[in-house]
């Protein structure tokens, strides 16, 4: 319970720091970077819900982001809805797709799921390319609403709220424990009354809905979307790398991973733009290397070092006691 107090305290401080960013700078460039950083945090932690807490890898997470973006765009331009309900519906549709796609695949061996979601991501990209309503390869233009402060706060409140909700859901509520039980041992989980397929599909939906909403916010913010920008591999690739690099199954790990990788990307693209594609190489190398050298991610390594230190201290204290 002590950790809960400390967590909330840290959360409030970080959230507060973010809140005052627009007051500190009138530079829209920084505001945009902060907004996008928040967005990636949101995508990385939603990916982590499934990967870190149930052990299933979703290699098509970008599809939910894209579904949310396109739904929002279509509802706003074709049906003339307002932004908020459009983004909300975008999230719901992403959730529905997760339900349908998860049902047959989550019953199976993890690799099938990884493959199926990856294919799903690609299939949706194709779909956006061939449909008329999505504008094909030309993409879609949304009503423009150029207010960086609005988008910054929308993203901040959404991702901040999302973080809190996921924290309570996964770390404090029965749901998180059920997920962990299934991750650790599916057969054992069944014996105590859990239906693994159902719980996993729920986790998949929980991870898909906010990703869709984030996509919706992104679409309205950027005002122009196309299949490559919202449904391309890069969305998934980056979310995966951020979460794995930061440390799966912790929420904090992916947050740190997202912040670091996004900062690196921004620097890289700003100063080394002529080598842009090299970014993919670094991303790929980073993920492969972190699997080999940092299997628990940055945060995991940090925590186990802290624990190791604590254990060492405890051990020393014990020794002292014995001597005395």
């Amino acid at each position: 319970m002590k950790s809960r107090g400390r967590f909330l305290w840290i959360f409030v401080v970080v959230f507060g720091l973010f809140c005052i960013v627009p007051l500190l700078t009138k530079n829209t460039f920084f505001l945009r970077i902060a907004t996008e950083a928040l967005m990636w945090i949101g995508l990385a932690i939603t990916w982590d819900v499934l990967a870190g807490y149930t052990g299933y890898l979703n290699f098509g997470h970008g599809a939910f982001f894209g579904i949310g973006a396109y739904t929002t765009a279509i509802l706003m331009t074709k049906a003339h809805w307002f932004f908020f309900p459009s983004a909300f519906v975008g999230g719901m549709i992403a959730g529905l797709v997760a339900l349908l796609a998860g049902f047959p695949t989550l019953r199976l061996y993890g690799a099938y799921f990884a493959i199926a979601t990856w294919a799903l991501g690609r299939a949706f990209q194709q779909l956006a390319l061939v449909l008329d309503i999505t504008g094909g390869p030309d993409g879609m233009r949304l009503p423009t609403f150029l207010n960086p402060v609005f988008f910054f706060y929308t993203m901040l409140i959404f991702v901040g709220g999302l973080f809190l909700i996921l924290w309570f859901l996964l770390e404090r509520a029965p749901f998180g424990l059920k997920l962990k039980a299934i991750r650790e041992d599916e057969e054992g989980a069944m014996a105590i009354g859990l239906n693994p397929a159902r719980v996993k599909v729920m986790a998949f939906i929980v991870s898909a809905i906010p990703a869709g909403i984030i996509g919706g916010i992104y679409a309205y913010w950027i005002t122009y979307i196309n299949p490559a920008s919202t449904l391309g591999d890069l969305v998934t690739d980056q979310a995966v790398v951020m979460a794995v690099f930061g440390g799966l199954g912790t929420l904090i790990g992916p947050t740190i991973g997202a912040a670091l990788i996004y900062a690196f990307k921004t620097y890289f693209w700003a100063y080394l733009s002529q080598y842009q594609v090299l970014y993919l190489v670094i991303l790929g190398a980073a993920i492969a290397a972190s699997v080999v050298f940092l299997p628990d991610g940055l945060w995991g390594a940090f925590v186990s070092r802290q624990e190791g230190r604590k254990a060492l201290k405890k051990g020393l204290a014990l020794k002292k006691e014995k001597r005395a």
Partner: protein
Amino acid sequence: MSEAILKIENVSKVFGGLRAVDQVSFEIEKGEIVGLIGPNGAGKTTLFNVISGYYAPTEGSITFQGRAISGFPPYRLAREGIGRTFQIVKPFAGLTVLENVVIASFLKYPRMADAEKNAERILDFTGLIDKKDESAQGLTLAGRKRLEISKALALEPSLLLLDEVVAGLNPTEADKTIELILKVRDQGVTILIVEHIMRVIMNISDRVVVLNYGQKIAEGKPGEVAKNPTVIEAYLGEAQA
């Protein structure tokens, strides 16, 4: 005769061409401890897995408290009131002892606080309360077996299926576990136990069912069964070669 809580009727389980369980029938009455024994490979574990829903029976029917339950998946059986332990213990390794039992308590107590209270009560009962904040991985084998029982008890089952909860323990630990099993029975839980260590089965069972080659070869009070020549032969092999 009092009412049967579990009725196994002509249950068979066939894998490929092998009849691992062959036309087995028996009943368990409320409040009893029934031992399921037989030499290695006799089909005990298979039958156990059929009863607990991990395999669907090829033939036959299983009735629990008057309801046909054959083919139910394990999580539905848990909801019906059947708890089980695993021979190869399956703790949720990355979680603490308390969390392990809390998860099992959600079935009866969906709210976190209630589940925690129930889990603590059960750990107190099974004697693991001092270790509640330790990682389940770090427990000794005896501790993990005890945790298995705790998790099953958290479901507040009316029938408890125990799979080798004593095997691998040293004599002192074994005695403590036996004590715990008897204590559970005194709470009104009916128990079906599979165990290789005969001393345990013979001491605590009200009745024993003996399997060999998938078939039931004997059933009765432990003392009678142990004198049964068919049973002795099944265990020690034929006296004359």
